């Protein structure tokens, strides 16, 4: 609509390339004809997203940071306490143990998930064209986290679970997957690998599709093995996609909450009390919204730092293609 009403060609002065050039340079000035129309159009497109960003992301983040300097129980006005919450956090052994538990979770979760997703993606690309297979890989992702958590909870129940019936039938002692302090975190990490590996594989698969096939053909002509091609062609060219996928999944992994809430509720003792669960308990169980906000800010800082480092180390913004 705005495009149609922008400067009609009749206004073009007659003749000369020189004059046309002048015109385009003057037209680039802000506030004239065409460009003002573009601006309005841009505002229409950006507006809704910007509004959503400000209302649902920027404002809550700023308010969360403000609340981290207050004592606040949601129902009475917040009271400014300066750095008290941060001092408490530094001296809170449960906070540090939560952070450690979360890091262990992320390492197991991301480590296993990335390697298996990469393997699945390469297999999908090199071995099959079947859309059905690609679909099946994605099925666990179609299930909600809570449902996946409950299903695995029942499968892995020490006394009554099918999983443990199989373990017992094989002649082993039953394994308290979710009730033992050493087993619980790896179990939860693997439950989430099961749910997310297909999605991650699909993202990597899309990245693999972007690698030109003639590279592999050329390598084959040179007599390279699949193994060598994987390390010399696939990995370097997949790097930017892999980096972005890693950044996204690491952030998601640090925010683990629902599986814990459904399966162990932070137990046994504090063995699975991951940071997000501890924050939730402080806020919605104990009404300590100020302290919960401070811990959320800490998580924000940790995640920003990790993302920044990852981004720089993996040069996620650059590609080696072309």
């Amino acid at each position, binding site marked *: 609509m705005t495009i149609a009403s922008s400067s009609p060609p009749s206004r073009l002065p007659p003749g000369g390339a020189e004059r046309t050039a002048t015109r385009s340079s003057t037209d680039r000035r802000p506030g004239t004809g065409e460009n003002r129309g573009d601006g309005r159009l841009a505002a229409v497109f950006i507006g809704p997203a910007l509004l959503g960003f400000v209302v649902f992301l920027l404002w809550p983040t700023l308010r969360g940071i403000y609340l981290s300097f207050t004592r606040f129980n949601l*129902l009475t006005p917040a009271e400014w306490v300066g750095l008290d919450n941060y001092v408490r956090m530094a001296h809170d052994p449960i906070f540090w143990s939560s952070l450690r538990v979360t890091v262990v979770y992320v390492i197991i979760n991301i480590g296993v998930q990335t390697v298996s997703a990469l393997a699945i993606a390469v297999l999908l690309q090199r071995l099959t064209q079947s859309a059905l297979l690609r679909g099946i890989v994605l099925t666990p992702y179609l299930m909600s986290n809570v449902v996946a958590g409950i299903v695995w*909870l029942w499968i892995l*129940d020490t*006394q009554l679970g099918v999983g443990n019936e199989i373990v017992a039938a094989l002649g082993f*002692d039953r394994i308290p997957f979710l009730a*033992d302090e050493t087993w619980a975190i790896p179990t939860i990490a693997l439950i989430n690998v099961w749910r997310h590996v297909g999605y991650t594989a699909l993202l990597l698969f899309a990245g693999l599709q972007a690698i030109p096939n003639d590279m592999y053909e050329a390598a084959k002509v040179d007599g390279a093995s699949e193994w060598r091609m994987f390390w010399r062609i696939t990995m370097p060219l997949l790097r930017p996609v892999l980096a972005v996928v890693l950044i996204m999944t690491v952030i998601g992994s640090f925010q683990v909450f629902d599986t814990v809430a459904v399966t162990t509720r*932070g137990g*046994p*003792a*504090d063995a699975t009390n991951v940071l997000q669960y501890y924050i939730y308990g402080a806020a919605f169980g104990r009404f300590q919204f100020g302290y919960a906000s401070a811990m959320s800010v800490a998580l924000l800082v940790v995640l920003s730092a990790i993302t920044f480092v990852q981004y720089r180390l993996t040069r996620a913004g650059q590609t080696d293609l072309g």
Partner: protein
Amino acid sequence: MGTDMRIRMRTLTALAGVLGLSLVSGCAQGGAGSSADTVTYWLWDANQQPAYEACAQDFEKQNPGLTVKITQLGWDDYWTKLTASFIAGTEPDVFTDHIQKFGQFADLKVLEPLDDLGIDDADYQPGLGANWMGQDGRRYGAPKDWDTVALFYNRELAKAAGLTAAQLNGLSWNPEDGGTFEKAIAHLTVDDKGRRGDEPGFDKNHVKVYGLATNGGGDGDGQTQWSTFTASAGWTYTDQKRWGTKYRYDSKTFQSVVEWYFGLAKKGYMVPFTDYNSQSNQANTQVAAGKAAAAFDGAWMISSYDGFKGLDIGTAVTPAGPSGKRATMMNGLADSITRNARNKAGAKKWVAYLASDACQRTVGSYGIVFPATPDGTKAAVAAYEKKGIDVGAFTEPVADEADFTTFSYPITNYAADVYALMHPAMQDIFGNGSSVSGLDRTNSQINLILDQ
């Protein structure tokens, strides 16, 4: 192409219209839920909903023009949603309140005082009324029901072990050798080779049926776990009956009892922590699955245990302790009105009716819960009897003050913080085998919080 476009436009308009309409009707519904002639009421126990709907019908007959709208939510969702509703300003007019949450709600000042309802403690079973007085001396809850804890046991397994109902009702325990209670539990335990817990060669690592089921570490109250033992050893949670400022988890009596109690699992007589799950495998599941012969559980579970297919379940009173008495927690729920209730006048009428003998007799007649008034309790006992359930093990502690002592949940400030600290601490002892003396530190942390 043109007609196609027009049809699509028409569909869009229609869709937009429907959407708009549903938004409008949604608003209208919200409006009706909070109008002057409706009282909104929340409860969490689905079993009790029919009973309270019957009460609501009688109430509506007596108060033409007033409607009660009952909403039932599962326990966890209930508290999450209630909290959110206080923040969003969409709270119900009246809700079923729990003593554990009461202190926090009173702190947050979200409850309406009920002093003008004329509720007299003497009209209810002992202790039920007084628990709902805040520290400011005002009443915030109208007593509605009560529950106690007793021993549910599998009659068939007890018979196989040669234990009679009379024996199970006459057990005693002590923290040194566990007394006849521990002997009975050991005898009820059978390993995978058929050897009983008190027989030579018993393999505690391969137990087929445990003598006693578990409900986990018990957090700070141990309602259906250790509280019957700690109380019959003479221990109390805090320095005062209500609104105490010092917890006593550092008491040597408490710690020795807890050590003995969780020790039952180490000996193979009680289901270990690793087999327990708060969502999928609680004490009642262990009994239902035939993995445990007996379980301490609350009166609210009577119908559940009775409903286990193919199992004949009996009940017995809690064992007598070193104090010479048998002990059980006696907990009562109440109805509270929210401070920002939209229909406060209607809410007060409804709560007054809920607390009346008339409604409590109606609720009692459903045989699902013990109402707070003596007449209501009588009606419930009769209704249970009609269903063929003997509830003596639950009512005796209230009637017989010579042999029994009943006690309440700890009522203090910062209950949520106490829970947050005691929940992992008790799991650490039960699940990870940590020393009970670690509770000294937890206790001083708790008392520090209460001091602020």
